[in-house]
């Protein structure tokens, strides 16, 4: 089915936050710090106040009066809204200029004079951990260092034993660089506080409107903005990828200003602000180790991670999972011994730790296991495909308990790898490669066979700020048999308006065209945790199916009454009930719904509505088998991705077109960090690529023509057997690409390069090894 939501976008009638214009609306622009670490000596706003159109300038001191200058992060750390004395990263918010127009606000920003006393920033997380390093978070009483938290999983002793006695041990340091989601729409909001009714309407770019409403209430409840007085509206969203989960200072300042002035305030960040100040992704320094036999049996893995969180831990993770779901790093392979530990540290970089189209740090985990598996194969001189085939968890062994305690729901890894190898013609490619190598030409074949973990999550383990990570659906069928369905999630392009309608249609038999899907308005939609981490179909999609099944149960009662038979004598097929043995005696769902309003059984509740809050029994574990083929120009290091084939398994597929579209997009966001994107800082904390001229988002030219396919292994515990797919390719592609490039360079003794692997890095490596 084609998408229901497309028509408005194609006519330019999408409705995004920056399209909102309210009477008397003021505009906000933000003064930002040129320094990564500095004392604020003086903020002189006099000149700014004289700029025509400027209404006021807000500083941390102003917010301090209302105790709004700090706010909690999702990881229960604290973050400045506006600083009162110290800035902790370059481009941190320092003051907000409010004016009658966008242009006046920008001029006002230029006129605000701030005196700083720059200090030497801590940019290297390892240095930051060293004893004697200046303590960054002096706001925290008795904080003596820059260490945030320590985390472990697995069995340390057992792992050490296996490593000690293994005949092969490989070890690889790898850095998964700091990157940025760069949704094409930046972040922004219109805060509209109505003084008369003491009511705030907050239009904002958020993936999780309900959670945001709760956070706003937590931050501003003490000034009278309690949760029932807050309405958060998330209109059309121009891409999220995790970057629109957090609460940014700009939102809070806009709310504060609207609250104080009683006038709507719009704040829309520009691209550089977005790149320089909004939440980053990744930034994990990983030491990966694998122990195995020389025949190629994987025996154990060990991972040590240093997580650079910037000046505060504002990561978007479930509360109990500081490293997200990194413990999936044991991968798709059948072994029972693993140990992993992580430490987080403060530095003078912007805060964050969001997805970049990834389920809570799974990308870092998959890169670590898929790279170290290749290192292992290289070490023992065995084909990496063979090593994977021989170590995969077998189809019949699911559900399978991982060394770190996850219960993989289902999978058929052998089938996926077999299929992708057939599609690319693996053996022929290896032959071609051998011939090319003989001629000194560089060609590489890279694999990635990964297991994802999505659909957070079961309430026993998963919560955000204490709120369990269920999600919800409410279906209301009108007397004429047409329906409206509302959800706690929020699409940013995933096509919920179509997919959810199809799920309900499949269960109820009402045509999807007749089912209107609504999300993103906290006044109307049921409470939910929002859309990220590929959780929408596994949670809200499931909720829709269960709610629809509740309606089928009610329909059965009404049908029995209308047909004057007992419920047991009825047969259901989506769309109608018929009487066993008398197939001509039927009631369609439309007839039944009409009766629910006009002629329902006495004693039965009228109407035809159902709501369900779905609490998943387990997460779902999508998987994929990817192969990438690259040709490298030896003289320039130039990398050409000749082919990339992705075979995904996301369980049952509701809409193949949308699933494939998600895979295409995810793959391009996979090649991006693998070959192009990285946020680069110098030692003084200057971000050196704070525009899209230097932060290299791939175009249609860099992005290869993706070839995709799938195997189908339904999730046994999901009501419709679906698993979620939005992020698998972003997670699975980088190691496939990195492995291909390293495979091409391996004849020269090159065993690893950190992503992004650029022509420059390749050339340097070849030069070092004397290959050119």
């Amino acid at each position: 089915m084609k998408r229901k939501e497309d028509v408005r976008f194609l006519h330019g009638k999408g409705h995004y936050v920056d399209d909102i214009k309210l009477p008397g609306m003021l505009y906000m622009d933000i003064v930002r710090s040129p320094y990564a670490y500095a004392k604020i000596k003086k903020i002189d706003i006099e000149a700014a106040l004289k700029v025509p159109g400027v209404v006021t300038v807000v500083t941390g001191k102003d917010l301090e009066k209302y105790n709004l200058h700090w706010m909690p992060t999702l990881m229960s750390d604290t973050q400045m809204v506006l600083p009162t004395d110290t800035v902790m990263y370059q481009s941190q918010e320092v003051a907000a200029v409010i004016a009658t127009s966008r242009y006046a606000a920008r001029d006002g920003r230029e006129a605000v004079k701030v005196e700083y006393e720059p200090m030497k920033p801590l940019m290297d997380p390892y240095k930051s951990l060293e004893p004697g390093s200046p303590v960054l978070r002096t706001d925290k009483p008795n904080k003596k260092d820059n260490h945030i938290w320590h985390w472990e999983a697995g069995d340390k002793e057992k792992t050490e034993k296996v490593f000690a006695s293994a005949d092969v041990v490989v070890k690889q340091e790898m850095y998964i660089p700091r990157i940025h989601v760069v949704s094409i729409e930046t972040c922004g909001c219109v805060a509209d506080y109505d003084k008369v009714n003491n009511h705030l309407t907050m239009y904002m770019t958020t993936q999780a409107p309900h959670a945001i409403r709760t956070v706003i209430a937590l931050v501003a409840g003490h000034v009278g903005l309690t949760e029932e007085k807050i309405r958060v509206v998330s209109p059309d969203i121009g891409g999220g990828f995790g970057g629109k989960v957090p609460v940014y200072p700009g939102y809070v300042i806009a709310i504060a200003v609207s609250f104080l002035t009683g006038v709507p305030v719009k704040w829309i960040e520009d691209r550089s602000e977005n790149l320089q100040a909004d939440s980053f992704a990744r930034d994990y320094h990983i030491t990966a180790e694998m122990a195995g036999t020389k025949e190629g049996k994987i025996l154990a893995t060990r991972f040590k991670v240093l997580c650079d969180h910037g000046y505060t831990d504002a990561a978007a993770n479930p509360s109990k999972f500081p490293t997200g779901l990194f413990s999936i790093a044991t991968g798709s392979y059948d072994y029972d011994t693993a140990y992993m530990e992580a430490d987080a540290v403060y530095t003078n970089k912007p805060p964050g730790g969001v997805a970049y189209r990834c389920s809570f740090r799974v990308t870092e985990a998959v890169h670590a296991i898929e790279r170290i598996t290749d290192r292992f194969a290289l070490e023992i001189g065995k084909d990496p495909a063979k090593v994977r085939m021989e170590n995969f968890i077998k189809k019949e062994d699911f559900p399978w308990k991982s060394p770190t305690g996850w219960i993989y729901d289902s999978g058929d890894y052998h089938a996926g790898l077999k299929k992708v190898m057939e599609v690319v013609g693996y053996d022929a490619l290896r032959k071609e490669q051998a011939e090319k190598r003989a001629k000194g030409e560089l060609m590489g074949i890279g694999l990635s066979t990964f297991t994802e973990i999505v659909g957070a999550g079961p309430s026993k383990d998963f919560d955000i700020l204490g709120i369990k990570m269920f999600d919800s659906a409410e279906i209301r069928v009108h007397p004429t048999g047409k329906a409206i369905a509302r959800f706690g999630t929020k699409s940013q392009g995933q096509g919920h308006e179509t997919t959810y309608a199809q799920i309900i249609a499949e269960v109820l038999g009402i045509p999807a065209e007749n089912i209107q899907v609504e999300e993103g308005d906290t006044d109307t939609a049921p409470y939910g945790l929002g859309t990220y981490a590929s959780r929408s179909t596994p949670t809200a999609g499931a909720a829709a199916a269960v709610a629809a099944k509740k309606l089928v149960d009610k329909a059965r009662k009404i049908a029995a009454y209308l047909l004057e038979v007992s419920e047991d004598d009825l047969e259901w097929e989506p769309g109608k009930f018929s009487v066993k043995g008398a197939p001509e005696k039927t009631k369609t769902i439309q007839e039944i719904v009409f009766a629910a309003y006009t002629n329902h059984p006495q004693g039965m509740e009228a109407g035809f509505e159902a709501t369900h809050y779905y609490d998943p029994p387990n997460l779902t574990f999508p998987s994929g088998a990817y192969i990438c083929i690259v040709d490298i120009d030896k003289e320039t290091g130039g990398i050409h991705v000749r082919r990339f084939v992705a075979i995904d398994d996301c369980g049952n597929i509701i809409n193949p077109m949308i699933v494939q579209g998600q895979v295409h997009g995810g793959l391009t966001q996979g090649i991006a960090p693998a070959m192009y994107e990285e946020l680069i800082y110098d030692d003084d904390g200057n971000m050196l690529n704070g525009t899209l001229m230097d932060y290299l988002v791939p175009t249609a030219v860099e992005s290869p023509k993706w070839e995709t396919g799938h195997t189908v292994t339904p999730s046994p515990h999901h009501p419709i057997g679906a698993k979620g797919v939005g992020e698998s390719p972003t997670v699975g592609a980088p190691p496939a690409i990195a492995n291909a490039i390293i495979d091409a360079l391996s004849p020269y003794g090159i065993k690893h390069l950190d992503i992004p692997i650029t022509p420059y890095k390749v050339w340097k490596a070849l030069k070092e090894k004397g290959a050119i």
Partner: protein
Amino acid sequence: MTTTINKSFHLDHPVDQVWNNLTDPNKIVVCVPGAHLTEQVDENNYKGGVELKFGPVKAKYDGMVTFLERDVATKKMVLNGKGNDSKGKGNAEMTMNGQLTEKDGGTDINVSMEVNISGMLAQFGSRLINDVSNQIFDQFINNFKAQLSGGEVDNTLSAGSLVGGVIKGIFGKK
């Protein structure tokens, strides 16, 4: 954003004359394109500023010039200039190390300049900094030579001298 530039060259002028010019604030500062002194704070510290213009790009810094070292015995000097962007968009710091040695009646000069830029210009203009610093330094040297020979010092950032500098840069490598 830090960039370091080293230059060595020979002058026929006697080492003492070169030393005097190199360590005299009023003489050396006028050789720095766009620079000027406003007041003397003490023996080693001076207030001043630098104004730069490259095509449409303008930058203005106000700050301090400090002699960190002036060792007449070893003919070694270290000069530091620190300034804040007049619009509070960042700062710039320059440290110049000068070493003179007497060579057949003339003077061998070895100068290194470390330029550090923070803030807006480093964020958006990093592409400029290295080339611009080179250009300034080349012009500084040309001005310094002109001054020694009693010639007029062009203190505005003119491109002409750059060509000289660049050509030297090129053929210097042969």
